[in-house]
């Protein structure tokens, strides 16, 4: 167990170093100079920098030094938590990101949790009796849903529930210029206002995320039906609910968990796109605004942050599955 854990941590440490290195190298090795605006096509600010301003920026990002010195400076900045200064806005990148992070983190965690739980439940229902009508319905519906890009689902929800029925607000994370009042009631009112704004984005992510979980859980449950311990549990007369809770679900945990790690990255990208549709002021909208203004430091920091988040999520998944495997006795045998 300990040896396996050490190997796992070592692997992720290497991957983490590689991600940081890649984040350092991508802007420096790709063709194109971030400081010469207006050279390529696009929507960037087409005002060229003056020579002095360009030199100053180059010195700030150590771009006038050899690559090895740049790397040392970059790592030093990173260790101090300095992610650079935004080109478009008068603020350090770190502050901009910390300002927006709660929105995306909240949206992502709620929708991931809901997608996993409902996906597992629906998949179990479908896999319990494969080939039945419920199973065929769920499989075809989720298969079609998995085929639609997030932003189309988002647009569809927006059209139906916000434009058509008018149940939800069209845009934003909370009402602008709203007066919530003081104290507890004010906080509750603000929270409910934010919740009504976030229901549609979260629902989009859940709908997009749930389909893959349904298909996986369905196949796992269908495969487990004839495992010897399930046959015994049924044979001794255990009610179906207990068979599901005590014997099927625990055995579905491992594949679902490892799949969770895989889907994390996809849903992260989905959250970025969905935020643009609904105008949620999270990291996705920040990324959208950054790429319109060609705000390279901001985009680079967002990439670093999201890839590290993905690594951490996968590490957590791997550690938990290691524990599950150890409890099963796989590592001892």
């Amino acid at each position, binding site marked *: 167990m300990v040896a396996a854990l050490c190997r796992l941590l070592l692997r992720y440490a290497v991957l983490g170093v590689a991600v940081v290195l*890649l984040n350092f190298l991508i802007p420096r090795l*790709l063709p194109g100079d971030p400081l010469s605006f207006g050279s390529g096509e696009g929507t960037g600010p087409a005002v060229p920098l003056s020579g002095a301003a360009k030199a100053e920026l180059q010195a700030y990002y150590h771009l006038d030094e050899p690559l090895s010195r740049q790397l040392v400076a970059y790592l030093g900045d990173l260790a101090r938590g300095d992610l650079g200064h935004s080109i478009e806005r008068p603020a350090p990148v770190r502050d901009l990101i910390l300002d927006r992070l709660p929105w995306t983190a909240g949206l992502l965690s709620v929708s991931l949790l809901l997608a996993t739980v409902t996906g597992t439940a629906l998949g179990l229902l479908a896999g319990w009796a494969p080939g039945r009508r419920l199973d065929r319905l769920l499989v075809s519906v989720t298969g079609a849903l998995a*085929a639609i*890009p997030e932003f*189309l689902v988002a647009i569809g929800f927006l059209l139906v529930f916000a434009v058509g029925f008018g149940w939800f607000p069209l845009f934003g994370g909370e009402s602008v210029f709203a007066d919530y009042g003081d104290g507890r009631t004010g906080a509750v009112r603000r929270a409910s206002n934010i919740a009504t704004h976030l229901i549609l984005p979260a629902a989009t992510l859940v709908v997009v995320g749930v389909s893959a979980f349904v298909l996986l859980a369905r196949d796992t449950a269908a495969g487990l039906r*004839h495992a010897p311990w399930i046959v015994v549990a049924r044979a001794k007369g255990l009610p179906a609910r207990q068979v599901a809770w005590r014997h099927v679900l625990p055995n579905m945990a491992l*594949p679902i968990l490892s799949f969770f790690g895989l889907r994390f990255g996809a849903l992260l990208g989905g959250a970025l796109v969905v935020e643009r549709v609904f105008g949620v002021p999270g990291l996705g909208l920040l990324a959208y605004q950054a790429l319109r203004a060609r705000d390279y430091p901001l*985009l680079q920091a967002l990439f670093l942050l999201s890839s590290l988040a993905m690594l951490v999520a*996968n590490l957590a998944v791997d550690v938990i599955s290691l524990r599950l495997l150890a409890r099963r006795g796989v590592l001892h045998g």
Partner: protein
Amino acid sequence: MSSPFVFLPAAVCSMVDRRSTLAWIAGGFLLALVTVSVTAPSLAPHDPRLTTGIPLTPPSRSHPLGTNDLGQDVLSQLIFGARAALIVAAVVAGISTVLSWTVGLMAGYFRRAEAPLMAVTDLLLALPNIPLYLLVLTLLGPSRRNLILVLGLLSWPAFARVVRSVVLQARSAPYVEASKALGASGLFIVHRHVLPATLDVLPTKIVLTVRFAVFAEATLAFLGLGSAGTISWGTMLNWAFADPLLFERPVWPWLVLPPTFAIMSLILATVWLSDGITRARAGVIRRPRRNTSSQKVVAPRRPRLTLTPAARPRFAPSGRRRSCTRRR
């Protein structure tokens, strides 16, 4: 020149399951789309880039799907968008497939190449797609060539692993050993004996990559990373959503709905086609599945534990039956 146009549909037709109607509808739709995109200049009523009408007019006879905020014809844009989507899909699928197979074959057969190639594959798989594309495309400058390059060069890792796992099985096959004993070189064996074994997953890879490319192109264009010069369904949506008061005015139906349905139907068509292909191939491999359906093995709610031999197989499924259940 004309041979791929005849051969490719024929090959696809031979792979699709005869009974799945959806797959045939999807195939017909894709064929129609290819025709539309080839004949786009003569089919489109107007030049999609020129202002040919009053901005934001509702659908009329001269503009069947209305005009956008610049007075461009939406139907013509939709038709030229099909062309953009299919070009991106085809080139990305080509690049990505070649790379997947090269890396997968090399890493699977040549032990020395395995560690570095798999390290690169794992690293690329560990990165989040959308933020990576955003960063790289913004740095390179958004254009269609760059979009295709980025999507093609970054989408091979998943199938490189699949191909490698197939190669690992084929590598120890007796016919490979025999060829080796006869003195064949590594490249010859890979080309002659290992490559054919991996071609089973080729249709799946192509369809999945086409779907991915349409998906990714639309998403990135929607985020504003399409090229300013070419029209695609994603950029149409991006222009529509650039208007903050889009849904406050009655113009959104003909600005939002046509590209939305176009993207959705193209992706659904590829999915249904791939379903048809997989079903046909699954049928070839395990035809008897339907007869020995595992549904028959259902334990009664309150089983009577008798020791008569007739009761036993109901509770303990035989090996043959268990092999029919799908496992991951």
